[in-house]
C-alpha cells in the first residue's frame, strides 16, 4: 500500500489521491467542529474518534506506518477510553445539555479565525507549491556531527528499523525522560484521584 501511494504521489496530477484526501479532510474538519460544538458530551468523544482515526489515515498517506499504528493504539485504544471514563466518573450528562459552552463563543470564533488566517497565510507564502516527494524516506539521511546530511544506501523497508535506531541513538535521553515522565504522572495522578 505504501509503495502504491508513493507511486501515485509522484505523478504530476494525482486525481484519486487528491479526491481521497479531500474526502478525508472534509470528514476530519467536520468531525473536529462537531467535537467543539456538539451539545452531547459522549458524542463529542465519538466525533473525536473520527478525527483521531482520520489522523492515522493521514499518517498512512504520508507513509508513516509506525506512527499511524501508534496513533491507533495510544489514542483510540487508551486516550479515548480515558476520556469516556472521565465523562462517567464526573457524572457528565449523557444526553443533550445546553450549557456546555460558556458565553465567549464569539471571542473563540474570532481568535480561531484569526489564527487560521495567520497560519494559512504564512504557510501558503512559504510552501505554496512544494510537492511531497518522500525522497528523504528512500535515502535515509543520517546527520554527522557537523549537521550536514550524509547519504547512505538503503531501502524503504528498513524504515521502522531506522526509526528505532534514531530513538535509541540520538533521542535516547528524551526517550528515558518520557519513561520517567509517565511514571511520575502515574504516581501523581493516583494520589490526586484517589479518595483519602
Amino acid at each position, binding site marked *: 500500500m505504501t509503495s502504491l501511494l508513493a507511486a501515485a504521489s509522484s505523478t504530476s496530477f494525482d486525481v484519486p489521491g487528491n479526491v481521497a484526501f479531500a474526502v478525508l479532510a472534509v470528514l476530519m474538519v467536520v468531525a473536529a467542529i462537531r467535537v467543539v460544538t456538539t451539545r452531547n458530551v459522549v458524542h463529542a468523544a465519538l466525533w473525536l474518534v473520527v478525527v483521531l482515526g482520520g489522523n492515522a489515515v493521514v499518517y498512512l498517506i504520508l507513509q508513516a506506518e509506525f506512527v499511524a499504528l501508534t496513533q491507533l493504539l495510544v489514542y483510540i485504544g487508551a486516550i479515548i477510553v480515558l476520556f469516556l471514563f472521565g465523562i462517567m466518573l464526573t457524572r457528565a450528562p449523557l444526553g443533550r445539555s445546553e450549557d456546555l459552552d460558556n458565553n465567549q463563543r464569539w471571542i473563540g470564533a474570532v481568535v480561531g479565525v484569526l489564527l487560521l488566517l495567520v497560519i494559512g497565510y504564512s504557510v501558503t*507564502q512559504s510552501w505554496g507549491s512544494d510537492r511531497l516527494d518522500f525522497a528523504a524516506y528512500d535515502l535515509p539521511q543520517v546527520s554527522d556531527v557537523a549537521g550536514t546530511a550524509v547519504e*547512505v544506501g538503503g531501502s524503504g523497508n528498513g524504515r521502522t528499523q531506522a526509526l528505532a535506531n534514531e530513538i535509541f*541513538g540520538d533521542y535516547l535521553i*528524551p526517550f528515558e525522560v518520557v519513561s520517567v*515522565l509517565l511514571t511520575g504522572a502515574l504516581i501523581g495522578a493516583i494520589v490526586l484521584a484517589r479518595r483519602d
Partner: protein
Amino acid sequence: MLSLFAQLLPGPFTAPTIDWLALGPEIVVLALFVVLVLLDSIKLERATAFMPAVANLGFILALIPIIVLAADGGDRVLFGGSYVVDSMALILKALFVLSAYVVVLLSTNYLAEGDYWESEFYSLLACSVLGMLVMASSRDLVGIFVALELLSIPAYMLAGWRKGDVRSNEAGLKYYLMGVFASAVLLYGMSLIYGVGGSTRLDVIAARLVEVGSEGIPVITLAILLTLVGFAFKVSAVPFHVWAPDTYEGAPTPVTAFLAVASKAAGFVALIQIVFFCFIVRGDIIQPVFFVLAVLSMTVGNLIALRQTNVVRMLAYSGIAQAGFMLAPFVVADELPVQSRQAVVIYLVIYAAMNLGAFAVVIAVARKTRSAEIDSFGGLFTYMPGLAVALTLFLASLIGIPPLGGWYAKFSVFSVLIEAETPLGLATAIVMAINTAIAAYYYLKVAKAMWFDDAPDGDVTPVPVPASLNAAVVLSLVVTFVLGVLPGLITNVTEYGPLAVGGP
C-alpha cells in the same frame, strides 16, 4: 573511520557511546526518584519521617558529579550535539539542585504538619528537578520539549497537592490548563521550525535559518513567535502571566516557592537554549518580541503589585516584574550574545536566592498567623525580630539596594542593555529604570508593616521556627549577601567561551 561508517549504515543497531560521568547529576536525581518510590512502596512504618532527609541527601549528592564535572572542565558533547554539558549547564544544574534542596527544607514541616502525601511529594519534586537538569543540557527541540513536560507535569500536580482545599485544586487546574495550552502552542511553533530547519537539533536549524535568509518567509516569524509564546507562559511574561498569581496564591506555599524560583528558572533556561543557540540568527524578530514581552512584564507586574494586599500574591506579581527584568537582556541577545546570556544567568541565580529566602520567611510567619496578608506581618519585628530583619534584607535585595545581591543583578542587566547601544535596548533600559523606582514602593509596604505597625490582634507570642526553615533562611541570606558583596564569585563562573552559534 570504519566504525563511523558502521554506525551510519542502517542495519544492526549500534549502541551510542555514552559519557556516563556527564550524565552524573541526572543519574543521581533519577536514583533519588527510584529510592523514594521504593521506600514508599515497601511501606516501612517510619519511612515518611526519613523522606525529607533522603530527598535532601539526594540533592546534595547530585552536587558531587556537578562539582566533579566542573573541576574536570571542558565541554562534553553527547549524542551528536543534542546534549551538551558545558560550564553554563553546570551552573544552572547546581542552581536547580540547590533550589530543590531549599524547597525540601521549606516543605518538611509544612507537609508533616498538614498530613499531605509526603513521599509522593518528594518523588514528584525529584521528577521535576530531573526535567530541569535535562533542560540545562538539551540542544535539541525534542529534548527541550520533553524536559519541559517532565518539569511541568509534576508541578501541575504539586500545585493541587492540598487535595481537600478547593483553592489549591483551582490553582492546580489553572496551572495545568494554561500549561497545556502553552505546550500546544509551543509544539505548533516547534513543528513549523522543524519544517523550516529540517532537523530537531538547534545548531542545524540555526545554520539553515542563516542559509534561508530573512526575506519573504513569514512562516519563520510565525514559528519563532509561537515557540516563544509557549516559553513566555512558563516564565510568566505578560500577557501570558494570568495563571501565575492565582496559582501562587492557591498552591501550597513551598510549591509556590518552587514554581516561582526553580520552575521559572527552568523556563528561562529553555529560552536561553532556544534563543542563544538558534533564534539569535534572526535578531530582527527576537528583538521586538522580547522588547514587547519585557516592557509589558515589568510595567504590568509592578503596577498590579502595587495594589496587592497578600504577600504571596504580591511576590507573584513582583516575580512577573522580575521576569521582565530577566527578559530584558534577550532584547540585545543578538548584539551581545555572551554578555546578555551572562546577565540572565546572574539574575537567575541571585533572584533564586533572594526569592527563596522571602518565601521561607513567609512560610515561617504563616505558621503563626495562618495568613499571608500584609497586615498579618504587622509588628513582626517586636516578636520575631530575626525573621523581620531577614525578610527586610530579602526585600531590600529585591528592590536592588547594595550591597545585597539584587543590585548586582539589576546592574548587570542595565549595563548590557546600555552597552549594546540599540534603540530597543536603550528604550528597555529606560522603562526598567522607571520600574525599579516603582518597585521599591510595594516591597517597602511589607517592610513598613513589619517594623512600624502593630501586630494585628495584639498577639506577640513568638512561635518556634523549625530548624529546617531556619536553615533555609540562613542559607538564602548568606548567598544573597555574599553575591552582593562579592559579585566576582558569580561573574567569574559565568564567563563562558564563545557560543556555538555566533551573532549574525
